[in-house]
Structures are given as structure tokens and as C-alpha cells.
């Protein structure tokens, strides 16, 4: 009986850890996106400080490619929107994963209690 519970506990724990790893991954991806967001905001503001007399270049690989100022502004704007959308997506993902990890946590704690009862340890109920 105790071994069965132990096995169940083990599997739940594994699942929970996997979920935690996923959460961490999404969290770091989201942080990267945040950094890109601030950077693109700065670029947008600085492009507004320039006038059309300055030539704008984009670094594509090893090449600096000339761009039109207005085109550049449009591109940066679109990129900002894309980043915002991605952040939203990651937010939702994170929320979902948090919920799932909560459930797992509860299951884990209940299994733990069962296991301890089976082992005959004095348990102070949480």
C-alpha cells in the first residue's frame, strides 16, 4: 500500500517539476520580450528625433542595408505590435501553467499526507 502511494507521489512530483521547468522557460522568454519591447520603444523615439536627411540603415547579417526613414518607422512600429502580441500570448500561457501547477501542488500535498499516514508518522495536519 505504501509503495503504491510512493509511486504515485513520485510520478506526481515528476509532472510538477516538468511543469515548473516550463513555467521558468516561458518566464525567461517573456523577460526577453520585455527587453526587446523597451529597446524597440527607444528606437522608435530616436527615429522620431531624426529627420529624413539622415540615412537609416538596417543590419541584416554582415550587411548594412539602406532604409527609408518612414519605412523604418513603420517597420519598428509593426515589430512593437508583434512583440506586444507575443507578450500577451506568453502571459496567458503562464497563467494556465500556474493554474495547472497549483492543481499539481494540491495533489502532491494530499498524496504526501496519505503516504505519511501509511508510514505511521505523527502528522500535524497542514
Amino acid at each position, binding site marked *: 500500500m505504501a509503495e503504491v502511494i510512493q509511486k504515485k507521489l513520485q510520478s506526481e512530483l515528476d509532472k510538477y517539476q516538468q511543469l515548473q521547468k516550463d513555467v521558468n522557460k516561458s518566464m525567461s522568454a517573456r523577460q526577453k520580450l520585455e527587453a526587446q519591447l523597451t529597446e524597440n520603444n527607444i528606437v522608435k523615439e530616436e527615429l522620431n528625433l*531624426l529627420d529624413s536627411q539622415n*540615412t537609416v540603415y538596417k543590419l541584416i547579417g554582415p550587411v548594412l542595408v539602406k532604409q527609408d526613414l518612414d519605412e523604418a518607422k513603420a517597420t519598428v512600429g509593426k515589430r512593437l505590435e508583434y512583440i506586444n502580441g507575443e507578450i500577451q500570448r506568453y502571459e496567458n500561457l503562464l497563467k494556465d501553467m500556474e493554474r495547472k501547477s497549483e492543481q499539481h501542488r494540491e495533489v502532491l500535498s494530499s498524496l504526501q499526507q496519505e503516504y505519511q499516514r501509511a508510514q505511521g508518522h505523527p502528522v*500535524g495536519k497542514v
Partner: protein
Amino acid sequence: MTSSHDQMAATGKVKRSNDLPQDVERLKEEHRKVVKDCRGQIEHWKKVEKDYESLQDRLRTLPNKLSYDIMVPFGPLAFMPGKLVHTNELTVLLGDNWFAKCSAKQADTLVEHRMKHVKSALDDLQKTVKNFENRADFTDDLEKLTGSTGDFVDIREEVVNEEEVTKGKHRLAHKPNSKPKQEYVLKLKEENGKGEGDKGSKRGVLFEKELWARLDELERQEELQDERYRLDSTDTNGEDTTSSSSEEEKESDSGNSVQVNGHPKENGWVSSSSSSSSQSQMNGTNGSHPEEVEEADCEETSNGLPTIYFSHTVEPKKVRINTGKNTTLKFSERKEQKEQAKRKKKNGKGNGHSPHENYKIISPADIYRVFVDLVNGEPIPRKSILKSRSRENSVCSDTSESSTADFEERRAAFGRSLSHDDATHSDTSDGITEEDSTTGSIPHINERFEAFTGTVIEKDPLPSSIPHLTIAPPALPTIPERKLEEVGTEMPQEPPKRMSKFKTTRLQQK
């Protein structure tokens, strides 16, 4: 692995009673970590700022010459002599693989823009560092308190200027003991000063007793001051009621027992409740001016008592007003309210329109702002007509529960009369006049129960034929007494039915 996990859980449950000091330690560790991280980041950003500044210097001097003779880096290990040409043409990285060709001055502008961001990041970090340092201090206090002798905490307020502490008129006639008490304060301070030098804990106990006695006296003083303010105060602003009542509850909860929480603001609250000045109460009730408690530091005196030093910030002058049910509100000066109203509306009009703006009534608060009595040259706000006190004049005497209950019923009853009035005045689209009519007709019911002895100054006597008021734009629109009498005579029949109800309820309550 699960067994160790379980063991940890089991042991965790067993040693719960000893958790507190370890948890506090852990909390302090976390605080310290955050502070260290923040400091590291601050260092980093400061370095960035310095780099940008030197870059700006270089940009300003660069176009001075057409070309410079320099040693050009040639690979990672060598240099070779060369020239720096086109000194005004710069290719600037804007971020995210975007480049722009600019002149030196334009680059300078870009660098300025970036420095702004860096500075704001630095400011944020400084703020968090301060916050966490405060938090760490307060957890220290908490630990000391829980470990120290009993629950006695020495809360001291260094009073620089005696006048600032006690606001309002000082009616010494009521308080024959006021001066001796001040002396007592000084005495205690001296003794406490001595006590710090001593190392005996016995004297600490004596001081504690004295302190408690002093606290009691200060409490009594505060109550007397409250009464004094009530006598002085006048009408009020209705919208602050809820905030004030909630603040009152807070005060009553914390009471005079010292509860030091880890939370800085609450700590300030507790300190304020145990300090003598009613100013602290006023500090809390006005939402527009949040209480700023200067650092409530905690120090350990050598007599074993933890000490919290507390000081007030000076608040702008406010008029204390009393509403029913023994709550007190503050009505800030008219100018401030005007400003607030302006800010709320986010009105883009120029200053030339300001007199008209003052009469523009959008929210109920505006009514109180606009209808202000001029008493002795000072604008005293009217109290809400739906409060119990409005049937009296500015001198408030009776704030008992029964009177407020009565008045609420009256209010409910004559809400019906109001609707009748509103029906007749429904054609007036002007919100001002409608509200005028309500304010005009409401006091008439007061007449039924008490003669209206308000100090209303008639600025513009209105023609009696008009059933509702219009605002003539003098400095202060007020409701003339003539109108009241007239309206009073118009409605003699409706109240009697309600009178009976009020009477019955009043009798019931008695």
C-alpha cells in the same frame, strides 16, 4: 528522494514553534539580497551614465577639427598611424540592428535622450533600495520587540515647536492643567535622556510607568481638543465621510496598544495614534493629502526599551468640520478644492474662465464647493443638507445618534416632497438650478422642527415669484432667508403626516 522530502516536511511541522527567529533571519537575508542586487544594478547604470557623458564630451569636441592624427587599431595586437576624417559624420546604432547616419549634434541629441532613460532607471533602483532598507529595518524592529521585555515600546516625538503640535485655538480657560503638562513633557524628556545613559533596567520600568501615565493624560487632552474642534467647526463636505469613518475605525482598532508591524506605513499609523496630537487624526482623514510620516526609526536604548522616533510633517491649514455620529471631517480650503476640481475635470480652459468654472457643477462635490457661506470674511463650507447637523447653524451641539436617525427618516420622507418639486422644475435643464431647488427646499423642513438660525448672508435677494433659484454670479451665491420662509409656507400640509412618523420613531427610540 521522496523520503527525504517527507522527512523535511515532517521535521518542518515539528519545529514550527522555533520557526519565528529563523524565518525572521530568512526574511532579513532576502531583504539584504535584494538590496545588494539593487546596489549592483545601480553601479552598472552609473557606469553607463558616465560612459554616455564622456561620449557626449567627445561628440562636442570631435567636429572641432577637420581631421585628427590618431593611432588606428590594426587587429587585436597592433596599431598604426592614421587619420580620422569626416569628423561630423557619424553612424549611430539606434538599437535592434538599426543604424542612422547623423551629424555630431544630432548624435548628441540622441545621447541625451538615452541618458534620460538611464536616469529614470537609476531613480527607480534608488527607490527600491530605500524601500527595502526600510523593510529590513522594520523586520529588525519586529525581532527586537518580540524578543524584548514585554510589549513596552518607547515612542518619542521630538517636538521642535510647541505651537505646531497643538493646532487650532488654544482655550486655556478650559484646560487649567495645560501648562503643567508641557512641563511634564520636558521633564520626561530629560529623564529619558538620562535614562539612555543609564544601564539599569530598573529605571526603565519606572519610566515605563510614567510613560503610561503620560499617555493617558495625552489621551484625555486629545479628547478635549476634539471637543474644542467640534465647537469651532462648521459645515462639511459630504464626500469624505466614508474615508473618515474608515480611518476612525482604523484608529480605534490600533488604539493605544503598540503594534509594530513590518509595514512602514502602518507603523507610522500606530505611532500617530499613540502620539498626543489630534493632527495625526486629521492627517489620516483627508485623502487628498496623504500622511507623510517621517522615518519612524527604531533604536534600542541602553535601558532595554526599543524606541521609535516619530515626527509629523507640517500640514497646510485645514478647517475641521463635524458631521453626524461623532465623525469629523476636514474641509480643505476653498482654493485647494478649486484646484482639485479643476484637476478632476481636466479642463483645458485658460485662467480667464475660472470664475465660470467655479459655478459649473458636475458632481455633488461641486455643490459644496460653490455654495459657501461667508462668515467673518472666511469661506466656510456648507454642510451636507442630508446630515443631521444641517438643521442647526454652524455651531454644532447635538450629534447624538437619535438626531441622526431622525434626520435620515426626514430625509427619506421629504425625498418624496423633493420629487414633487423636481416635477415642477423638470423643465429646467440646468443642473445648477435643480440642485438649487433641492438646497432651497430642503431647509424649509428644518423650519418645521427648528427655526433656521443659520448665518446666511443675503448677497442677492431673489425675486419671490420665481419658484426655483438661479445663480446670479456674485462672489458667493447664497440662499436668502426670504425664500425659505416662503417655501415653508407653501408646504404646511405634507409634513404633518410625516411628523407623526418621526414622532413615533423618536418616541420608540427614547
